[in-house]
Structure formats: C-alpha cells, structure tokens
C-alpha cells in the first residue's frame, strides 16, 4: 500500500462511521422535522406525511416549549457564570505556589467532574430532602427553616443549578490553570517594576491574558449546559409544575415517550440553532479580541 492510498484507507473507517451514524442522521433529522412522524408512522410508513414547517409553527405556539426554553436559558445564564466564576477562583487558589498540597486540592475539586451524573443526582436528591437532607440540616443550624428544595417550583431550579455548579467547576478549573501557567512570569515582574500591586496585576495582566481561555470555557460550558437532561430527569422529572423541564427533556418526552418524532426533531433543530448562533457570536468576540491584540 502506497502512503497516498493509505491516507484514505486509514480515515475510511472513521469517516464511514461518522457519515452513517452521525451526518446522515443529522440530515435525516432535518427532514424528519418536516414530517408528521408519530406513533402511527412508527407502525407503518404509509402514515407519514410531509407537513413543511408545521412542526416549527406548532412549537412556537406550544406553551410547554416556551417553559422549557425559559428554564434551559435560566439554567445556562445562571449556572454558567456561577460555575465559570468558581472555576476561576479555584484555579487561582490551586495555582498559588505558596499553597501546600496543591495537587491534593486540585484532585478533590476535580473529583465531582468524573463521577457519573445519574449517581450523584441520586445523591443530591437526598441532600435536598426536606426532612433529613444535609442541606436543610445545615441551614437549620443557622436558623433558616426547612425548604422543600425539589418540591417547590421556586427552589427546584436553583437546586439543580447548585448541583451543576458542584459537578462541573473542576473541569473549567483545569483549563484555567493551564491558561494561568501560560502567562509568562516576566509580565508579572514587569508589572511589579511599574509599581502594580496584586489587584492591579490581576486586573492588567492575568485577566487580559486569560481572555482566550475565557471564551473557550464560555463556549464549551454553554454548549454543555444547553443540553441539560439527566439532572431534572433523575431529581425532579421536570417538575414541580414544569419548573425544571429542559429542552432536551421535552425532546426526549416528545420523541421517545409520546413518539411524536417529527415534532421532537423540530425541537432538536431549534436547540441546535440556538447553540450554533451563540457559539458563532462568541467566536466573533474571539477574533475581534485577537485582532485588537495584534494591532
């Protein structure tokens, strides 16, 4: 085998698999979203009709869709910055060379990331238990009355957000640590020579040089958080009164519980469109930033 043919031969298995099990389904999903594919079509394809953008039109008039969109957006907008902020704090702490046992702290902060989401969601369900949960016990000690975290529509989403922050902050911490390490020490030295104190160094050296890391972290966190599913599925089943129903959960229910797959496909594409647009906007920030840095 000559190495020119070898190139194609070596990528062929991967490309074939990606084509058949990813690209084709994605395109098919778009077509599916233009049909009325439902339980009857599952039984016999003769019951399948093209309905154009009807599913999208119906979605926009579906109160449940707006509830799910609002919940998901709330989750992204609150849990995103909270976990990124905590990640940065954790990264600064474990990057400080004066701290002993830095590796141990880093490992502890990272441990929730590798745990199985379903399993720790089960754990947190008990932590949030109104009667014997650890959280209410701790709050009771400082005089805050028992809260029905997962049973009260006002507290269910905050509870899921807190758990997500706990689960994920270690991941971005690792990326921030790498970003901090890539800042040359001489920049801090130069800043000190110019009389910059620690907060000025943070403001004028650390933060600007972390900007690319920030944008990357922002994009992956956003993409991940828009796909919220297992937490509400295990902890609240989307309740109480739809307070934690997410877009992916609604898609799952529509597609795989109620078999309204055309409708669910339209939902999946709206999710994709949202993620794509937000990613592109963030990427533009990145190139603009880069352009400024080079001029």
């Amino acid at each position, binding site marked *: 085998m000559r190495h020119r043919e070898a*190139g*194609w031969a070596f990528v062929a298995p991967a490309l074939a698999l990606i084509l058949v099990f990813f690209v084709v389904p994605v395109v098919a999903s778009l077509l599916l979203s233009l049909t009325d594919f439902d339980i009857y079509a599952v039984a016999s394809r003769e019951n399948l009709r093209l309905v154009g953008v009807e599913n999208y039109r119906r979605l926009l008039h579906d109160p449940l869709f707006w509830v799910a969109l609002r919940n998901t957006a709330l989750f992204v907008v609150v849990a995103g910055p909270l976990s990124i902020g905590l990640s940065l704090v*954790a990264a600064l702490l474990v990057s*400080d060379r*004066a701290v002993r046992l830095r590796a141990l702290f880093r490992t502890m902060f990272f*441990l929730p990331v590798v745990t199985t989401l379903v*399993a*720790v969601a089960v754990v947190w369900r008990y932590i949030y238990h109104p009667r014997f949960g650890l959280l209410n016990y701790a709050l009771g000690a400082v005089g805050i009355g028992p809260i029905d975290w997962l049973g009260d529509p006002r507290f269910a989403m905050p509870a899921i957000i807190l758990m997500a922050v706990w689960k994920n902050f270690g991941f971005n911490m690792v990326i921030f640590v790498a970003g901090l390490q890539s800042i040359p020490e001489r920049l801090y030295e130069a800043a000190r020579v110019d009389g910059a104190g620690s907060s000025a160094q943070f403001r004028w050296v650390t933060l600007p040089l972390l900007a690319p890391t920030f944008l990357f972290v922002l994009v992956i966190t956003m993409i991940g958080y828009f796909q919220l599913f297992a937490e509400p599925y295990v902890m609240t089943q989307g309740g109480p009164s739809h307070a934690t129903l997410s877009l992916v959960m609604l898609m799952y229910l529509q*597609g795989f519980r109620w078999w309204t797959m055309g409708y669910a496909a339209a939902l999946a594409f709206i999710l994709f469109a949202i993620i794509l647009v937000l990613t592109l906007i963030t990427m533009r920030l990145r190139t603009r930033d880069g352009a400024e840095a080079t001029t």
Partner: protein
Amino acid sequence: MSASTRGYGGAAAPLLYAALAGLAAFAMLPLVWMVSASLMPTGEATAAPHLLPSTVTLEHYRTLFTRLHLARAALNSTMLATAVTAISLLVNSLAGYAFAKLPFSGRERLFRFMLGGLVIPAQVAMLPLFLLLRELHLVNTPLGVIVPGMASIFGIFLVRQYALAIPQSLLDAARIDGAGELRIYWSIVVPFCTPVLVTLAIFTFMGTWNDFLWPLIVLTGDARQTLPVALANLAGEHVQDVELMMAGAVLTVLPVVVMFLALQRYYIEGIVSGSVKG
C-alpha cells in the same frame, strides 16, 4: 517563587487556606456522605443527619447484587465501555494519524469540515439514529449502544494534534526500509502516540460508562441496562431506601473514580491539550 510574587501577601495565607478548605468541603461532602450513608444500617440516614455510620454494614451492597441484579447492569456497563474504548481507539488513531501525517487530496478541507461537526449536539442525531437502528434490528442490543461511539470527531482531533509531532524522518526511514503502512502505524505511530491513546481511552471509557440519555433510549429491556439507567430506575422505585440507593451510587461511581485517580495525569493533559489547541 513565593506567594507574594504571584500577588498574594504572606498575611493572606490563612485566608487562602480557609477558601481552599471551604471549596474542598463543598466538593467532597456529597461524596463522603454518599459513601458513609451506603454503610449505615437501614433507616439511619433518614434519622437525624449525621456524617458517620454508627455501625458499618455491607448489607446494602449485598442487596444490590442478590435482590436487585445490579451485578448484571455492572457487567453490561463494563462490557459496553470496554468495547467502545477498544473499537474507538483503533478507528480514531488510524484516522488521527492519517490526518496528521498521510497526505491525500482534500485532507485539510475534510478535517476542517469535520471539526465543524463538533458544534452539533448529539441529540440532533438521536431520533433518526434510533429509527435507523430499529430497521437494522439493533435496538435493545449491545451493538446499538456501541455504534454511535465507535468513531469520534474529538478523538480524531486529539490524536491528530499529537501525531503532528511524529518526526517525518522516522516515517520516511521506515518506508525506505520497505515497511508497509500498517506496519509503520503499528510499530512507530502507536508507540509514539501511547500517551494520547491512554488519554483517549480514559475519556472514552468514562464517557461511555457515565452516558445516560442514549442507553436510556436504545436499551428498552431490563436485562441489557447499563448501571446509570438501572440506578435511575431503582431510584424511582426505592425512594425511601436511602442507604441502598447510596450503595448503588457508590457502585456506579467507584470504577470511574478509581480509574481517574490512577490515571489522573493523562486525563488532565487530555483536557488541556484539547482546549489549548482547540
């Protein structure tokens, strides 16, 4: 370098440790409680909350295996994660190496096009994929779970970035000596890329082990369920059995946590190289 060179005064050290300790408590308490509650006698975790069991019992772990058949789910998870890891290592390393080192027409364009696919959430493909697997009679079979994980864009990307550093002279010398391309892949590329392949193996194993939505969709029968799916079902039925559920959670989490602790360096490096070069 001392603390003050990074901007924190020596006097701030107690504060620093207080923050670290607080964060460590936040990160670890739920996990510590999970382990502790799993060892408590029935009913103890629902009494006044406390952190340590009065007497340590393994009865809940026994129940998981004898009465609830979680051993089967654990076995399913192990086999599926192992299979996906083995297949995807082979497929992704071949492709990643080719994208880095074997010139073919349209290579760069194809690679960029493929990377674009990273923005597409997996859920978009799930509905037609399910219908496709249904036609192929793969729903509720192990292969149905494995199929979407056999090749991964991120995996190819990870290997390619690493394989770019393989010295061209090494490959050329092997070719002059008459080595075939598969031979070169096996005896030069794989040994050179071992660190990144370990990283990819950990990612894939953990990702498959921890995955929930796809196994939930494609495995419709009890006998085939993976641990997370089985645990989610049990958690619905056994709401009151806290200690039992915590044992189930420990069982689910333990293999990935142990794997992470053992191979931490590779795992962290994988995230960092995937992000810095991405």
